[in-house]
């Protein structure tokens, strides 16, 4: 009940500590980290997939990325390079790379061999094969990696508040510092709402891409649910 009152208080909707400002911080941190990660990981993943080489390296990068605790890496980077948004962005970029890299690699290398041979048969060069056959076929799976990374980074960006990076985590940490249960719960509700909406929206986009390419039978709702279900 108190949480609802907190949300209707206009004071929480204005200024640099207001909900819109914190929301914007969270989105900007997320967007920058995901874009940098995509610029690094997409070419590498696509190229290794196309050439059919280096998948062992890709797998070990992914495994290493999973084993390093987010919390520790964030504090470590902040301690090494100074508190602030940049430490948060570097840490989040590192987390965004593994899902984008592995999905791009698997998406391209997993393209049907028959389709590849057909492309060769009509005289495509390696580059044409990549741009006209492999990339269009792999697009939904490549996007799946970007979706996973974006949702993960949106969630983890909450931790950025720990190292002075701002974002929605501020409400939780400030509330916690003030022993203000209402503020903490409001922050938690806000974060949960944002990450869940992000997941739902991007799953819809992914289902939409697959439908646009015309390779999924059935209705959009069922492929949307399938995307969400398969995580």
């Amino acid at each position, binding site marked *: 009940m108190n949480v609802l009152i907190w949300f209707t208080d206009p004071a929480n909707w204005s200024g640099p500590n207001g909900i819109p400002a914190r929301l914007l911080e969270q989105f900007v941190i997320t967007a920058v980290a995901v874009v940098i990660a995509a610029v690094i990981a997409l070419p590498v993943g696509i190229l290794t997939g196309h050439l059919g080489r280096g998948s062992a390296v890709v797998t070990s990068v992914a495994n290493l990325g999973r084993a390093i605790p987010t919390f520790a890496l964030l*504090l470590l980077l902040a301690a090494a390079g100074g508190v602030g948004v940049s430490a948060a962005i570097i840490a989040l970029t590192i987390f965004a790379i593994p899902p984008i890299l592995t999905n791009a690699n698997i998406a391209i290398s997993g393209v049907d061999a028959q389709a590849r041979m057909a492309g060769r048969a009509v005289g495509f060069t390696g580059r044409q094969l990549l741009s006209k056959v492999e990339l269009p076929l792999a697009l939904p799976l490549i996007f799946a990696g970007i979706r996973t990374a974006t949702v993960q980074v949106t969630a983890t960006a909450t931790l950025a508040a720990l190292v002075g990076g701002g974002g929605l985590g501020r409400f939780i940490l400030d509330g916690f510092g003030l022993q203000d249960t209402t503020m903490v719960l409001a922050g938690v509700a806000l974060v949960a709402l944002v990450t869940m909406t992000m997941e739902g929206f991007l799953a819809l986009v992914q289902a939409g891409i697959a439908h646009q390419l015309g390779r999924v039978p059935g209705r959009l709702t069922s492929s949307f649910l399938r995307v969400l279900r398969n995580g």
Partner: protein
Amino acid sequence: MDLLTALVEHTFITAAAITLATVIAIPLAVLAVRSRWLVTPTLVFGALVYTVPSLALITGLWPVFGLSATTVIVALALYALMIILRNTIVGLQEIPSHVKKAALGMGYSEGSLLVRVGIPMALPAIMVGIRLATVSTVGLVMVGALVGHGGLGQIVLNGFTNNFYRAPILAGTLLAVMLGLILEWLLVWLERRLSPWAPGALR
């Protein structure tokens, strides 16, 4: 708090969360698979809960359980639950129908089919779920430092607030990574012991 105490707490919280999650996830998966329509809602709900960050979940449970290890254990058990649940459901669904028919033909009831055929056949998938959940839980326990029960996260956070003293930050991080690797290795060993029929188990 010294390193050893932190390591022990870290291991305890991880073990408690994984045990709690496993005990709840397996019956839940069985229930979902038995009444088929439950599978999609369960998995979609799980995927959505899984997106909520650990910082939010742990502090969200703080008003309920206070500054205790229980807060961290319950929050992390929720994440582990989703991973193990998903893997168990997939494992149970992938049992070939001819195996089920053979068991029914031999006079197994629905219940014993599940316990004596279903669970053993789904065991590799369940164990993969438990392993993934364990490694991710070891990393997440550190966030519990915010409510004073983060195991090695405590060492890291103390180093951080103590004027960025890097030695404890690095020591805590490395120990956590090692703990994750050791637990994963232990679970691989356990899986081999639990499924002696699997290829390569009796070596």
